[in-house]
């Protein structure tokens, strides 16, 4: 909350190119589709960052909540006929509510027990998808989904989906930054850094841990719903617990607990993921190695290490300036 100067916003100038990317890449519709995926994963990773990066609760249930959003939206649309654009929101709220209910008992747990309970949760969701009552999810066969329509226009083209996704991404990323720079965000950080002291300062830590899960559920569910209506067909393997690790890698590569870490991490890992698409059997191997490398050598992620580098250069400049004078 330092002094705000116009200079501060200059560095965001290159971001202005983003809305024009689909026009530039118009010929390569595959790349535009990738950008749509980037948006979806940035939203999910942003939610994950609130939970893990800020409130310090690890989770391996991200793919599960992603699935709740995806199947939630598709099934609600299928059985009620509510427009897809609304079912996305409804599914996100549903995912948020499930996260809140799940979090209430789980907020007591830490470290290994929290990890285990989230893994189990993901299993439960996966089982429900693959062995659904009455086979409404299509079980292992998957299910076809409808496209998003707004005012009678279908976002079947990746270009139109991109702009819709971009609006959602911007709103959700900005709201997250708002939330973090507030009383609630400070409480999250306080709990992560020192739960004992946070409680001594009057913070009801369980309440805020549950809040963090709710935000996470909403973001990941929203992303899952967008995903379902982008790809047109969803099947269970996308929501298996191994996929949860992918989201964690995105968050860690970008940098936990930062405004832009999830955006950078989501983008880079998604593009990498696509490049590795040809070597699917090695995907998990590469993720594993990547995760270990980042945990050991770059715990701050790209954002954290970048900041360190800038600080180093700055202090070196100061030293040089002192030597010269």
């Amino acid at each position, binding site marked *: *909350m*330092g002094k705000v100067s116009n200079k501060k916003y200059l560095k965001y100038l290159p971001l202005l190119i983003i809305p024009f990317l689909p026009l530039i890449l118009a010929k390569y519709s595959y790349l535009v589709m990738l950008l749509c995926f980037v948006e979806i994963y940035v939203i999910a990773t942003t939610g994950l960052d609130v939970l893990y990066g800020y409130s310090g609760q690890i989770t391996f249930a991200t793919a599960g909540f992603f699935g709740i959003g995806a199947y939630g939206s598709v099934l609600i649309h299928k059985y009620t006929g509510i427009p897809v654009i609304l079912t996305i929101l409804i599914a996100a709220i549903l995912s948020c509510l499930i996260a809140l209910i799940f979090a209430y008992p789980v907020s007591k747990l830490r470290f290994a027990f929290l990890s285990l309970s989230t893994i189990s949760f993901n299993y439960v969701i996966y089982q429900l998808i693959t062995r659904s009552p009455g086979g409404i999810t299509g079980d292992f066969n998957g299910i076809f989904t409808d496209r998003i329509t707004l005012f009678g226009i279908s976002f079947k083209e990746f270009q139109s989906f991109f702009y819709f996704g971009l609006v959602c991404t911007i709103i959700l990323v900005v*709201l997250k930054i*708002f*939330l973090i720079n*507030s*009383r*609630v*965000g*400070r*409480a999250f*950080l*306080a709990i992560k*850094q*020192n739960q*004992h*002291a*946070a*409680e*001594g*300062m*009057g*913070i*009801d*830590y369980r309440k805020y841990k549950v*809040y963090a899960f709710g935000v996470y559920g909403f973001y990941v569910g929203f992303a899952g719903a967008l995903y379902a209506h982008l790809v047109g067909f969803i099947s269970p393997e996308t929501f298996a617990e191994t996929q949860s690790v992918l989201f964690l890698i995105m968050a860690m590569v970008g940098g936990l607990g930062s405004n832009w870490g999830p955006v950078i991490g989501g983008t880079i890992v998604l593009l990498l993921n696509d490049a590795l698409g040809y070597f699917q059997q090695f995907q998990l191997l590469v993720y594993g190695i990547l995760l270990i490398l980042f945990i050991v050598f770059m715990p701050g992620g790209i954002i954290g290490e970048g900041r360190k580098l800038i600080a180093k250069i700055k202090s070196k400049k100061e030293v040089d300036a002192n030597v010269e004078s």
Partner: protein
Amino acid sequence: MRMLKVDHMTIRFGNLIAVNDVSLEVRENMITALIGPNGAGKTTLFNGVSGVYNPNDGDIIFCEESIKGRRPSYIHNIGISRTYQIINLFTEMPVIDNVIVGMHGDLKSNFFDSLFHTKRHRAEERECYEKAHELLKFVGLDDKAYEAAGSLPYGAQRRLEIVRALASNPKLLLLDEPAAGMNSKEKEELDAILREIVKRWQLSILIVEHDMDLVMGISDYIYVLSFGKKIAEGIPEEIQNDPNVIEAYLGGDD
């Protein structure tokens, strides 16, 4: 007037009785000290009052309300704020945010105010930062407001803990060895700060401290613990000449 009454408090850990049937009182606008040799149960008593431990026996009355068995966050929010023996700051947060976290319970913004940065939230945040800067000026840390709390020197971290505890406008401030690890100059500053706090904030202080010069200088009333039991109480002059206290500190024949 009586502010806090610890009534026959007992805290046991298995067979060890850390606090044994101790009663004490803290009066308004006074500095009350709790002293005793290492392992006397002073910090355990603090933890019993602030809700970290639930006493096995006895009662704690704060402003006519029994707070025994309440959660630390509840106890903080009704007006008992504390510092810790082992510094317990949010080390990676900026100094000023540490102070603002201390105000958490007083802020009215709810989740949705925070999410959408409503007018109420923005006004409240502005107020918070102003108040936090004032508090930091009071202990001479305002120029370090945006540095990480963990990067401060030891004495400064102690002072930061005190203003963080003050940020919630408590009625009672519990200070657990605030002078530990301070040099003599810092101790003098601390002495002045504590006196000023009582005057300006109109609150009571209960302090655990090993530095006898500091304790005898600022305390209005002193309780002495040894092996979990209260062995003496009185004004500083009485305590200095109490044979029980001298024996407890220097060791008796038995």
